[in-house]
């Protein structure tokens, strides 16, 4: 075991994978010599050579498009989009190509690529460095979508993603890169080294894609969250004293519906939390599923806590961000409803 930040865990996942499998290649803007703007790929070029870890031109559709071609050849590219906000130029390659190559060729060609990207707000990134575009990916059949909430999961899930035979979108909440965050911006981030989930095995291990984890057992209400919001939810539960069960989804697609249904059937109440905007966000899908599968067990309407339906503002980012106070109010609402 070692103490790792999420950045180190992500790096370790790529390192372990590149060491085990010569077909794994890593590239993206600034990822080679420099090691990426968040240093997730630091040292990989020095260790594996510049044909396995290299800098790419600033062309997101080029990065994803060439990764698709490499995958068709037989490599396993793990590429970085510098910020999730910049994946839109590559969206065509992802949705129409990567996601469908297996289907349209009936398995003649496949597309085992991983697209990593830092997501979410809380670092004063403004509207162009704070987005959470997961719903744009979960709507695309053929992609898998992962959002880890801690270093241990990040490494195990990234290794699974790299080994997965299909395209995987790997969204890394950058607010959690250095430590868990409870949503109180005036408090410093607690480093992962003070946190049990900062314990990460050095070698190879994997976490199955499509399995949620219950972060806190409870019986009064179920909170469904992922990424940064898992930590915000835990803080809110602690502050309100409500005996909530907190589910960390980890994989949004495929989704662990069973864990959700089991929990909501037990508690009869549900709060869904995410950082992305409300309208047509992934929370809508979660609420619909809860309604379909748990209707007769529900004792109150399901409550959503999300970012506002506006771009991510720079100066007011903590008013945009769904912090523990807002989640706490939602918990109370769900309990009273």
């Amino acid at each position, binding site marked *: 075991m070692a103490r790792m930040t999420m950045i180190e865990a992500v790096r370790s996942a790529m390192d372990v994978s590149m060491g085990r499998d010569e077909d794994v290649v890593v590239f993206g803007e600034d990822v080679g010599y420099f090691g990426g703007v968040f240093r997730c790929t630091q040292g990989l070029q020095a260790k594996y050579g510049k044909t396995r870890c290299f800098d790419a031109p600033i*062309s997101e559709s080029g990065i994803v498009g060439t990764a698709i071609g490499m995958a068709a050849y037989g490599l396993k590219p793990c590429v970085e989009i510098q910020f999730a906000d910049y994946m839109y130029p590559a969206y065509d390659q992802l949705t129409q190509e990567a996601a469908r190559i297996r*289907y349209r060729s009936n398995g003649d060609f496949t597309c085992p690529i991983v697209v990593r990207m830092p997501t979410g707000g809380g670092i004063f990134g403004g509207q162009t460095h704070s987005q959470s575009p997961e719903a744009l990916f979960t709507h695309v059949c053929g992609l898998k979508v992962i959002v880890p909430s801690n270093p241990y999961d990040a490494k195990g899930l990234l290794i699974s993603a790299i080994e997965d035979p299909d395209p995987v979108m790997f969204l890394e909440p950058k607010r959690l890169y250095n430590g868990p965050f409870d949503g109180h911006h005036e408090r410093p981030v607690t480093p992962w080294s003070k946190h049990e989930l900062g314990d990460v095995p050095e070698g190879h291990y994997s976490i199955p894609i499509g399995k949620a984890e219950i972060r806190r057992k409870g019986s009064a209400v179920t909170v469904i969250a992922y990424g940064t919001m898992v930590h915000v939810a835990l803080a809110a539960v602690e502050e309100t004293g409500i005996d909530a069960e907190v589910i960390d989804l980890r994989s949004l697609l495929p989704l662990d519906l069973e864990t959700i249904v089991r929990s909501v059937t037990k508690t009869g109440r549900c709060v869904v939390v995410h950082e992305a905007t409300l309208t047509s966000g992934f929370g809508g899908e979660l609420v619909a599923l809860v309604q379909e599968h748990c209707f007769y067990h529900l004792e109150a309407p399901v409550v959503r806590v999300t970012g506002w339906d506006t771009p991510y503002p720079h100066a007011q980012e903590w008013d945009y961000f769904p912090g523990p106070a807002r989640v706490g109010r939602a918990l109370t609402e769900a309990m009273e409803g």
Partner: protein
Amino acid sequence: MDEFSRLSLHVPEPAVRPGDQPDFSNVKIPKAGSVPRPEVDVEPEAIRDLAYSIIRVLNREGEAVGPWAGLLSDDELLTGLRHMMLLRAFDARMLMAQRQGKTSFYMQHLGEEAVSCAFRRALRKGDMNFPTYRQAGLLIADDYPMVEMMNQIFSNELDPCHGRQLPVMYTSKEHGFFTISGNLATQYVQAVGWAMASAIKNDTRIAAGWIGDGSTAESDFHSALVFASTYKAPVILNIVNNQWAISTFQGIARGGSGTFAARGLGFGIPALRVDGNDYLAVYAVARWAAERARRNLGPTLIEYVTYRVGAHSTSDDPSAYRPKTESEAWPLGDPVLRLKKHLILRGAWSDERHAQTEAEIMDQVIQAQKEAESHGTLHAGGRPSVRDIFEGVYAEMPPHIRRQRQKAGY
């Protein structure tokens, strides 16, 4: 005082429209044999002219002349002629099948047969094409079974794509033919990625990307060029300039760059223009580019100057936007007739043998069609299972798709 008048937008227009006299005076055609053949390791800077000229081998008399001639034997040329005739007959039958309602849609190659048929012969087994929809010649010239192509077009029970793809969107890893996307230009940058992978693995195989003149306006075209140029990928970047993108003439996508090949110059990629209706010239240029790629000298951009004689697709009516007789006025002639003439001149062919072969080929295509139709057409006979809708989205079917499959009754 304002000395400038008001601005106005420039919108390019083709020289002629329906009802006008066809006019190709803007297509400057050099004499066959007049364009030099540089060494494959030439500096791109030294051959900038080749992006503005047209490499031609067959002259008007049907002779093969100049430095790009002399690469193919009689037998190889006869094979080439046969491939082009086969593709033409195949097109004719499939067009008819579409009119008869046996499939929804078809795209023919009329006038462009030399491009893909000759190019394929310059590649080796294991090389990979990333084609668009008008390169079925890559399959025909690699002896891919015609029945399989028809099964795909008819979406029948033996369709290799299980009914999931539009007609003509073939796939064959074995024959070096990447699964076709309907989204223009996406394959271009994928070809570069494949080539980069081959170089990363110190392999010997090369890739080829394909795009139409209209689609060069897509950003993926430019992404492909920057990646190919940056990493010197062993890739051949083909642009088929058939003058039209549906109803839009080539001047709309080309902008001020003069030729499409010239687009390569800013990237330091050697760029050649070739007579796309000249089987010998296409082959010669493709071989030059393939050799460059195989010697690890990097990418080559090739513009094939040709003309789309047929409609864009079965949903298109070209008489609405260009003169009816324009294709006859096309100054580079018909690729099949030009090769035929050359072979007759060589003493390897005759009008009689040509007519006889034409009839044999049509028989062969009709036989294949009968076989394919025995497995079903779009609206009749055997078809892929509804279960196939749900298979193959992922390597392993996730629970939510399984639930939906069960809901559909499968």
